[in-house]
């Protein structure tokens, strides 16, 4: 059974003459526990696709099903709540809340949901990612690699079914990037989560189970990873 499914997704930016067809009818299906990499050049529409999959932006046409639920049927408020329970995001720019410390950043989505924080589980994640000694630090006191690991911890914290990662290694050097990604993959397996990752780095993409290539808003090829 597929955990994530996109049907005929289209997205047009702008109006009138100067429109951009970012997505031209994408169909995609991801199985539970799978690690999928989406690759493409800049402007190919890969980020747009990821935003649609995560419900961050609404498509011009088409549907996205997460765990069998058509997410664009939901209103903004409900969509946000659905998203923070089902989907974890990791961004290129880390997107940590600068005024909160590492621990607070990690548990924020759980607390926003009014849930009780499972401290043991968080400790396990933090340990796995090797940032347990930085729990009290503020984001600007961390290196890029550390910040991205915090972002990954945050994405994992609410045990989402799916993790969507937008160029998670883009702001990191090659070595750190590979370390971080291995960590992401290991943790996802450990907590049995599905990963959809965007990258323009072929080498990084090779770590995935499946590589999907996108160009001009269309999926042009699919192949198995290593």
């Amino acid at each position, binding site marked *: 059974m597929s955990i994530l499914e996109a049907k005929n997704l289209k997205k047009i930016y702008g109006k009138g003459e100067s429109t951009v067809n970012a997505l031209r009818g994408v169909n995609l299906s991801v199985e539970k526990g799978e690690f999928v990499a989406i690759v493409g050049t800049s402007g190919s529409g890969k980020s747009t696709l990821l935003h649609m999959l995560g419900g961050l932006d609404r498509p011009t046409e088409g549907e996205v099903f997460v765990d069998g639920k058509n997410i664009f049927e939901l209103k903004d408020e409900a969509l*946000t709540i659905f998203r923070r329970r089902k989907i974890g995001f990791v961004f290129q*720019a880390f997107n940590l*809340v600068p005024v909160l410390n590492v621990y607070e950043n990690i548990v924020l989505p759980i607390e926003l949901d009014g849930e009780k924080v499972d401290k043991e589980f968080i400790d396990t994640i933090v340990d796995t990612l090797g940032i347990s000694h930085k729990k009290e630090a503020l984001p600007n006191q961390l290196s890029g690699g550390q910040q991205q690991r915090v972002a990954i911890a945050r994405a994992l914290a609410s045990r989402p079914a799916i993790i969507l990662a937008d160029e998670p290694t883009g702001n990191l050097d090659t070595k750190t990037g590979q370390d971080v990604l291995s960590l992401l993959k290991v943790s996802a397996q450990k907590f049995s989560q599905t990963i959809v990752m965007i990258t323009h780095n072929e080498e990084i993409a090779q770590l995935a189970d499946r590589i999907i290539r996108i160009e001009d808003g269309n999926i042009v090829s699919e192949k198995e990873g290593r």
Partner: protein
Amino acid sequence: MKVNNKKPVCRLALRSLLANKRRNLIAIIAITLTAILFTTLFTILLSVKSSYETSRFRELGGCEHGTFKDVTDEDIARLSTDRRIKEWGARTIIGVDSSPIYKKRSAEISYMDENTTKWSYIKLEEGHLPTAKNEVIMDSEALKLLGIEPKLGTEVKLSFNILGEPDDSAIYTDTFVLAGYWEFDPVCPAHFVNVSKEYVDDFMKIAGEKGYGPFRTDMNIMLGSSADIDGTMAEIAIDAGYELMDKTADNYIRYGVNPGYLTVDNSVDITSMGTIVSILAFSLLVGFTGYLIIYNVFQLSVSGDIRFYGLIKTIGVTPGQLKRIIRIQALFLCLIGIPVGLLAGYGLGAGLTGMVLKTSTIPLKSLTISASPIIFVAAAAFEIVTVLLSTSKPGRLAAKVSPVEALRYTEGADISKKKKTTKGARVTEMAFANMGRNKKKTILVFVSLALALVVLNSVNLFVGGFDTEKWLESKTVKDFVVGSNGYFKFKGARSLYDESFMNDIAYIRENVNAVDEGKGYEADCYTRMVVDEDTYNGFAEKYPEYIDSLSRGENGEYLENAVVEGLDDVLIDKLVCYEGDVNLLKDPNGRYVAFMANKDEARNIYTDPDAPKVGEKVRIAYADGIEVIDTKTGGAYVDGVTDANDIETVYTEIKECEYTVAAYVGVPYAISPRYGSLCCNVVISAKTLEGDVGEKMIPMFYSFDTPDNASEDAAEAFIKAFCEDSSSYQYESKAVSRQEFNDFKGMFLILGGVLCGIIGIVGVLNFFNAVMAGIIARKNELAVLQAIGMTGGQVKSMLVTEGLIYTVGAGVIAFALSLAFTPVLNGLMSNMFWFYSGHFSVTPVAIMIPVFAIIGFAVPFVAYKGLSKTPVVERIREIG
């Protein structure tokens, strides 16, 4: 599903709030300023109201809520246990001294306990309340009349009539020791002469044995609030087992409500329509000003923080939670701003109340700063509403933000219009282009800057248009008007009349250089107009609320109240004739009267269709006697027996005089009787009046002019001293009126100045905020511009150009608006205020433009200096 997520939302709200110090400071200043305005407004309003009440209470002799009358010690013990009575005080009167020295107001010999003393506005200058048996305290004027120096320990010999025994046989004399005295309050109805409780108890015992008495003890009470005193007192009495209706019952008790709490005077009634409208209008202006800045601060900070909002949205903050974050931040800022504003506003309001009072009829001595919690509750509520309104739109904007776009957001990113230009990017062009990025923001800054200037100009125009000479011309007919207290208190000359007035006028004449003198007179008897039965009944039907002014004569005549003012010929010349011939009044053998009409009724001078026309005859009745009868029995009215509905007043010893209506005239206020009846206010020649009533004619006022400035100043000094010396007289003069008018102008100038100042601060704050926010939001962009070759100087001059466009532009807009609206405003004001002279001035705006230019230059200059301390490379790297 309700989830408990208060904690993280609050944490996010407060942490990000603390990270934004500049915005907080500006927002807190804005909230504080608005709160100051609201609090000042409410403080002045309620203080004027309480000052008015104080002046009423001083006239009535006390500020207690009500009084249970003629009570025994047991009654007091029983009533005082009631929880609704917050405080109580007792007073026992044993005698009254009405000897000739106390002819203006009698002296009441009584015992007052501490509370009653306090409520009677007795504040001892020196000494203590009487405790030893022979101790006494009294006011300075009473002492002066007795010829006793106000020195503690002095012997005071008092002779007084035992209460209820007016005969000379019941005069009691005793010697006391002065234990204290207080400054006399000229509006107090009686001289209070207070002795000790021990003395009163002994006195009542001895006098009782001689068959005098019973003496009367009243219990004054204060309730929790002044709402429904009547009802509460009745309930207290009934709950304590008293009877209120049946006067013959053993447990019957009488009570009275202090009339000071009942009377509603339109001049200070804050529930009257006009007052409510002006309060609302002012509140709206204040609210709008506050809205403008608070909205602006939050709007700008939302666009500055939009990346942050997008970010936390991607993590899972819902739109509703986002709005809550902004609301929590706003309320948190209120927590700091409002208390400061309330305190400062209360102080400012307290200070300004005195100035407002100066221009009213309330004496400054009654200044009472209200400490009502309503001031603070209302001001805080208005402020919170303003803040919530101002933040709701920025909140919605933040909530609407698409997280994806927010992450990419730059201000004004969707520029749809692309101009073709071959000039390249020049600094000034870039500055203009930058202002076009966020049109709303630019307009907001323009509006708030220009508003301050326009209001400033309007206030200047408004106050400058108050024409002192126009005011004086109309308000003062003569240089000086000296009259009795009753005359100036709108009660006519008969009340509070001092018999030595004629002698005192002679005394004044000896001491001033008076020319063109003239006096106004009144007859010291009841003046009524005789009407026929139809008019009488028609009148009763038309004006049921004035039924009291209708009465009957002893021979069955139908009478209605009339005011008859006798004027010397020199003053008759000052009347404005609307119809007929006013000069007929001066005919020594003529029998004429002129009816008074209001100026604005010039076109329709007959106030009532039944009023006599010019040429018709009217009959005025001068009655000496009055009888109050019971219409059921036909006999005299009996207190406590006659039903209120059966009481009727009948006038006796009537002398009727017939006159012809010569004219309808306007009487200048300065020489008018200052009180009136509904339909019959007439002017008559003093000679005619004297012929008809003889010695009963008494002067209301004495007026005169002075030939030159020197004698005017001398007369002013003399009359001022004379009136201060004698508590019977007051005066009006051109100098005093000028001073009053200038005070009035000054009040507007200061109130307007405060308003301008605050709007000005708000405008500059807005500007400062806009410049700072613009620079900070474009930090990366500016760094990039520098990296690609724009020099620091060029960046600076671009920013300064932007600043100058804002401020100088706003100045020019304000200048244009002021030019355009001056004629409109002049027209409006001339219609509203007859003493307004239209004039033209845009000087304040012209003066302020260079000031604004300096601000427009300095703010971006300084802001950039701060920014340029951080190296370019670092700025480029910084994100959001």
